[in-house]
């Protein structure tokens, strides 16, 4: 076949689009985990600002991918049906709310991180639905991708939180257990997502995802869980930080792969072949 049903990797979205999902996911997760940790003071302020910075970095990446970046404000025009518009609206509310929460936390107000955490969840939910709404890509339109992106976002954010633990000292044993649980949830959701793609996505897309899955299992789950166990048993803050360092990039790699390596379309398909002359009816 010269040019037909074999799917090919989409080229419209590259590493810059992946950067939006990586930065946005990790940043949102960090803000949510900071709220869950009940962090306060300068540490909470710094963590919230770091989360916002990551989200901002992701949005800057996707802005750089726009064909007409000076028209970027047009992105707000379709809240009725577009998850990209909704993502932009969530980000617009999240940034001032997050900055205000960071300022208040710095001045001693506690428990203020919940508002940006809720908005961060809204932001990452919109991002996840954005991927699912891309009906041209089988690996993206699978409904389970929403749960996968939410789970990776939370796990990456928790990883970044624990990476910074030696500095902020806001961690605790229950939080470490939550981190471990998030890693387990992420890998379970990953396998559920991967199982549902069988027979739907292109073989090369599945091969790319399987490579990412191995990284997620080993580097993003087994290693950080082992380090977390060492941290819990031995009381080593460094081990917990290393666990965080392992967990976050593995999730980022999965997203990078999902966008830039597993974004195969479904090509073209004929339900029936044309019947010419007296030939019997044929199916492809």
């Amino acid at each position, binding site marked *: 076949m*010269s040019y037909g049903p074999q799917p090919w990797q*989409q080229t419209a979205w590259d590493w810059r689009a992946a950067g939006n999902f990586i930065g946005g996911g990790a940043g949102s997760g960090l803000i949510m985990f900071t709220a869950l940790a009940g962090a306060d003071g300068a540490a909470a302020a710094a963590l919230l600002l770091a989360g916002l910075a990551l989200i901002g970095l992701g949005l800057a990446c996707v802005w750089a991918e726009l064909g*007409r970046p000076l028209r970027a404000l047009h992105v707000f025009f379709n809240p009725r049906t577009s998850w990209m*518009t909704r993502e932009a609206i969530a980000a617009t509310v999240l940034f001032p709310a997050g900055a205000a929460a960071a300022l208040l936390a710095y001045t001693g107000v506690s428990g203020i991180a919940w508002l940006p955490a809720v908005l961060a969840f809204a932001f990452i939910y919109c991002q996840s639905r954005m991927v699912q709404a891309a009906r*041209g890509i089988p690996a993206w339109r699978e409904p389970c991708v929403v749960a996968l992106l939410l789970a990776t976002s939370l796990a990456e954010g928790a990883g970044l939180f624990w990476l910074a633990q030696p500095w902020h000292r806001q961690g605790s044993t229950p939080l470490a257990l939550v981190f471990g649980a998030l890693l387990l949830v992420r890998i379970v959701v990953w396998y559920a997502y991967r199982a549902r793609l069988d027979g739907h996505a292109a073989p090369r897309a599945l091969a790319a995802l399987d490579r990412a899955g191995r990284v997620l299992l080993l580097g993003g789950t087994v290693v950080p869980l082992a380090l977390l166990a060492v941290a819990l048993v031995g009381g080593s803050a460094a081990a917990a930080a290393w666990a965080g360092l392992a967990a976050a990039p593995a999730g980022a790699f999965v997203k990078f792969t999902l966008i830039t390596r597993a974004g195969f379309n479904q090509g073209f398909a004929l339900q029936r*072949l044309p019947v010419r002359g007296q030939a019997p009816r044929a199916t492809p």
Partner: protein
Amino acid sequence: MTRWAMVVDLRRCVGCQTCTAACKVTNATPPGVQWRRVLDMEFGEYPNVRRAFVPVGCQHCDDPPCAQVCPTTATKKRADGIVTMDYDLCIGCAYCAVSCPYQARYRTLRATFAYGEPIESEARTLDEDRLAVATKCTFCVDTIDAGLARGLTPGVDPAATPACVNACIAKAMAFGDLDDPASNVSTLLAENESFRMHEELGTGPGMYYLWDRHTP
């Protein structure tokens, strides 16, 4: 109501690409951009090999994923079924391109020409508004609207009919109103077996492919 649609008879298409050329000339698309292209597809293993030529492009869906995801409303669906593009609104995010199951969307970031430097016709037809934004087949909507304004019938009168349909040497392509039971496309669909591509996705494509005569 009116629902403009296209019918392609796969038994008639010979893969001559005249529709592709007509589209390119009419819409002045740059190299590599084919709003109407013809796939040359082979099926089976030697010696049982079948071949089909399949014109594809924007399917002007009933529920177009591109319009749903578009954050700017640059992509719109008209009441008559035609999916349009507003180049002045588009930000070139390419979300529509990854959402279209028919790979009908293009984004050309900078002006490109067949021979490097623009030849006279390319220089004359270059449209800066179409750079770095999404583009696609419009069913030659301007031609249709102009024809309707003159009382012509799209699909019947060439002056109101998409360029690809006019150009087809084998009468493999037809254009008309699906909601009119007496239209050419309604008649073709009534007399023949047909399918729509990737119909399982629920997009409701506005392009129908005929593959055999109807057997009651």
